[in-house]
Every structure is written in C-alpha cells, then in structure tokens.
C-alpha cells in the first residue's frame, strides 16, 4: 500500500469528508512525526509503535570498491520499534485482520 492508496481507503471509510481534507490529515500525521524526530523528540503511538532517533558515532569506513579508508561523520538515524499490539497482530494465525 502506498500513500495514495491509504488516502483512498480512508476516503472509503469517511464518505462525509472532502478528499482534500483526508490528504491533509495524512500529510499532517507524517509531517508531525518527521518534525518531532527532527527536533530529536520521540513519538510514541500506543498499540502501534514508537519512533525515535538514534545517534551513530563518527567512524572510519571503507570504500567497498577501492578498499580505501574514509571518515564517516557522526549522524542520526530514525528508528522504529513495533508496539506490542501490532506485533501480536502480525503473528495472528489468520493473517489477522481484527
């Protein structure tokens, strides 16, 4: 499923709403999560999972083609930990659409 398909499904479930508004809802949700991570904040969505930012220290890497050593600067990577309910839902026998 891609973003536009998600919007279509939400539109089906909410026939009283403008399509444009649903697009804005989806954009706002992901933009708020991104903005929070860019501030270094955590985002915790109970039953779904938690997004956080982990710091990776600077290290000496290698160019896999030439084998030469390259400095890799310190950086931050976004991380997602699956929530308990979602983890259980993924492992329900029937493919589990509750």
């Amino acid at each position, binding site marked *: *499923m*891609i*973003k536009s398909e*998600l919007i279509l*499904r*939400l539109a089906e*479930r*909410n026939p009283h*709403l403008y399509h444009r*508004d*649903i697009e*804005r*809802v*989806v954009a*706002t*949700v*992901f933009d*708020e*999560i*991104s903005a*929070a*991570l*860019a*501030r*270094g*904040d*955590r*985002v*915790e*969505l*109970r*039953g*779904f*999972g938690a*997004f*956080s*930012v982990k*710091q990776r220290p600077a290290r000496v890497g290698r160019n896999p083609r030439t084998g030469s050593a390259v400095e890799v600067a310190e*950086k*931050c*990577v*976004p*991380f*997602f930990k*699956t929530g308990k309910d*979602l*983890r259980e*839902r*993924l*492992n*329900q026998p029937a*493919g*589990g*659409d*509750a």
Partner: protein
Amino acid sequence: MAGHTVTRAELSEAVYREVGLSRNESSELVDTVLDEIASCLSQGETVKISSFGSFQVRQKSGRMGRNPKTGDEVPIEPRRVLVFRASQVLKARINAALAKLR
C-alpha cells in the same frame, strides 16, 4: 536527545489545527490512519509512505535461543517482524535539523 515524547493526542491536535475538522473527528482519523496501516501490515503487505519511509513485514524462522540469565536453551518460534526503513528525505531532514542544533 529525546527531550519530549509526542503522542497520539499531539498528532490529533495538529490535525485539528491544520485541517480544521472537529477535535473528535481529528482524533478518530489519526487512529484510522494507524489502523489502516496496521491492518495492511498484518496481511503481510508492505506499506510505503513517500518522503517518510516504508514498513515491511519479514518472516523470521524458528531457532534455539538462550535465556541469557540462566543459560537455558529456549525455542524461539517462527514469527513475523516489522521493519521500518526511513526514506532518504526523512534521514536528510533529521540530520540537517540536528546539525543546526549542535
């Protein structure tokens, strides 16, 4: 890092502010967004949100694990796990913003 934790309530508040639907409806929509994603994933389907990232379900096979405290062998059942891969756009946004903070 991680000074503050953003929750569903804050996402709903942002939707209320940005889209102009009622607070109640905003909060229900945030839940519906997450629920649609979860339901797709629980069927094993990948969910891709452009400029944010993708959620993918991976099948892990069973293996023997160990209780690290007691050293006992414990079977780990085959299971499905979820992995999130952030898009380049999101990674760039996080690193640009945090570089400025420093």
